[in-house]
């Protein structure tokens, strides 16, 4: 027979643990109180404090951040998702970390480098309103655009970094990582920018590549030289086919580099891409056809631009939740990860970055993808 008191204590401890684990109860309060004292103390979110702001070019700034101590670190090439509030609306964007993993280990600092995009709400807001001492909510680092480790030492795995514009940010982190871990590494960087003025990290890149004997740095200026060609690529990097390519820049740029590289004999598996970046806002007409992808079920259906998302989901064989079918009850709420919809109640296009939409009153305009429905 066990001591009944011990039993009771055990029971109470178990109960208390379960209670603590149930999200929404005590922790929410504790987190609220801690955040009231200092936002950095939050246990439910990772926060980061801005410690320095560096002007890189006319339209690019680097924000040095000190994440809260629970933040786990990152690998060179990874990105974080940052949340910023603009006029009451929380907007999220991914930004590659431009600093080195070592700098984080030593000083607990990371940095993101943000180019101001014309019409870009988040980048403009960060440029105009983010100050030293402010805090931001950040995510853990993620992304698989990282340096591939050599399995077989004999096999050459020379990286070729190809970046355009602000696509340099994850590459910067990787180059710093090369310097810290294997300074003798043979590597090359081809960097496309509009003009010499828009060369991000110019001084840093020159110093870095200058100090690494086996790293070459080839900048290109599209305003004077035009866009990338096969010949140019071949000329910049004659041993292209032996290299592993790390590519980051706007979508059309990456597409053309990929096709040139394949032409020159680079195997598919040797090209690594970072696929986010400046997506230019497109204004589409209502009645536009497109593909609707339901990511959680893997189904998709063609939209003619005349049926609501709820109707489309149903004809794709899904069983979405709904109630009034007229925009009142919000039972049909679903989360959209990309694309635009037309709100039939207001006749307006919802912005790309609005994630919560009512399926019963939303008509897809062009391609969209739905996270969960």
């Amino acid at each position, binding site marked *: 027979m066990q001591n009944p008191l011990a039993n009771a204590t055990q029971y*109470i401890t178990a*109960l*208390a643990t379960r*209670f603590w684990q*149930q999200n*929404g*109860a005590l922790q929410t*309060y504790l987190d*609220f*109180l801690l955040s*009231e004292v200092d936002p950095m103390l939050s246990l439910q979110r990772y926060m980061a404090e801005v410690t320095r702001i560096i002007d890189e070019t006319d339209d690019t700034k680097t924000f040095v951040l000190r994440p809260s101590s629970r933040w786990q670190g990152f690998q060179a090439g990874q990105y974080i998702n940052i949340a910023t*509030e603009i*006029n*009451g*609306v*929380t*907007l*999220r964007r991914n930004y590659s970390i431009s600093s080195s993993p070592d700098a984080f280990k030593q000083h607990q600092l990371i940095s993101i480098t943000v180019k101001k995009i014309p019409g870009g709400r988040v980048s403009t807001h960060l440029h105009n309103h983010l100050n030293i001492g402010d805090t931001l909510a950040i995510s853990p680092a993620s992304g698989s655009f990282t340096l591939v480790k050599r399995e077989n030492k004999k096999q050459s795995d020379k990286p070729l970094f190809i970046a355009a514009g602000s696509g340099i940010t994850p590459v910067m982190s990787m180059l710093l990582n090369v310097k810290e871990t294997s300074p003798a590494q043979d590597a090359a960087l081809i960097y496309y920018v509009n003009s010499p003025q828009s060369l991000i990290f110019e001084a840093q890149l020159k110093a870095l590549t200058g100090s690494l004997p086996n790293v070459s740095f080839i900048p290109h200026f599209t305003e004077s030289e035009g866009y990338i060609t096969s010949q140019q690529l071949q000329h910049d990097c004659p041993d292209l086919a032996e290299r592993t390519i790390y590519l980051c820049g706007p979508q059309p740029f990456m597409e053309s580099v990929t096709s040139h590289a394949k032409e020159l004999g680079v195997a598919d598996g040797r090209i690594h891409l970072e696929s986010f970046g400046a997506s230019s806002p497109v204004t589409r007409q209502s009645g536009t056809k497109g593909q609707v992808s339901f990511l959680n079920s893997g189904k998709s259906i063609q939209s003619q631009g005349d049926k609501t998302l709820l109707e489309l989901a149903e004809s794709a064989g899904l069983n979405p939740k709904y*109630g*009034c079918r*007229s925009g*009142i*009850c*919000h*039972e049909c*709420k679903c989360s959209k990860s990309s694309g635009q919809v037309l709100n039939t*109640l*207001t006749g307006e296009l919802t912005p790309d970055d*609005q*994630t*919560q939409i009512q399926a019963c009153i939303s008509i897809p305009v062009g391609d969209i993808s739905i996270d969960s429905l």
Partner: protein
Amino acid sequence: MKTNILDTLTHQELDAFGHELDQLRQEVINDLGQRDADHIRNIIKKQRYSEVAGRALIHFSLNPLSWAVGVGLLSTAKILENMEIGHNVMHGQYDWMNDPALNSQTYEWDTVCDAESWRKTHNFEHHTYTNILGKDRDYGYAVLRLTDDEPWKPRHLFQFINYGVLSVFFQWGVGLHELETEKLRSGEVTWKDKLPFIKRFAKKAAKQVSKDYIVFPLLAGPMAPKVFLGNMLANLNRNLWTSTIIFCGHFTEDAQTFKEEECENESRGMWYYRQLLGSSNFTGSKWLHIMSGHLSYQIEHHMFPDIPAHRYPEMATKVQQLCEKYDIPYNTGSFGSQFKTVLARIARYSLPPKKTAPRSPAVGA
């Protein structure tokens, strides 16, 4: 007589009326921003501080007075959470903020009513079919007879007692609403059909009961009884308050009911019109409105359930102007006078209908 309520305006008039309300809705939507985010965060802050202070006082009070203050603060916190925060967030009023803590589909509130169940019975059933007899199950909560359209039975003589019990245990009544006891009794649905709901309800209720009646009292050790009692009183206060607010919003004397046939193929204008006739407002101070979750503006809430509720006062001025323009009654009065008419209505329908003089609806009055 009642079948004609919706016919007092022509179709053209109803369309124009609906159009003007849509416009008003759009104006406010276009204007949503920092002010609204600040409002809800400010209320949340006040709610959290009053809950923390209330619980601390209940635990550590050295005299009955500080204990009573603690109970008052905890009651306030529970009311704020249920009304201005929970109810409104779950209507989707703050979804545009993209803040996961204020998302209508994931928010869970501090009552035994499971949020999922609430969204179904309240957001869908009640807000879509407002005051349609047989479809809006909020109408009398299957407990009260509030119209002559429901046949009188001798048990209705005692419905004041039922009303009292419903108010005291209001959160349980709301929580069990989806059980549809009236349909179980008539055999329309079976207990087996209701099993998923019962499971969900039991889980939420157990969580709530263990929080207020087991965990917090135990944390106080030998002082457990006073914590138990304090939490019970806070829940009681919240129950009585929310029940009263909700009754004043729909069961005042002049709030109209509708028949299913009247609402077939309803236009948007007619839907607005029905929401308006079925709801009633009451006047009061800013804090009365906040403590009622702005359900003191029940009319505006029913027309614009997903617009942040603190916008209702400014919208109400325009709605009232429109009502004057179209000669539509706008049911409002002081809190006290509206509540009196609720009690009068419960009393009136305790008795069988008077054969001689059927009450005519107050349209245009």
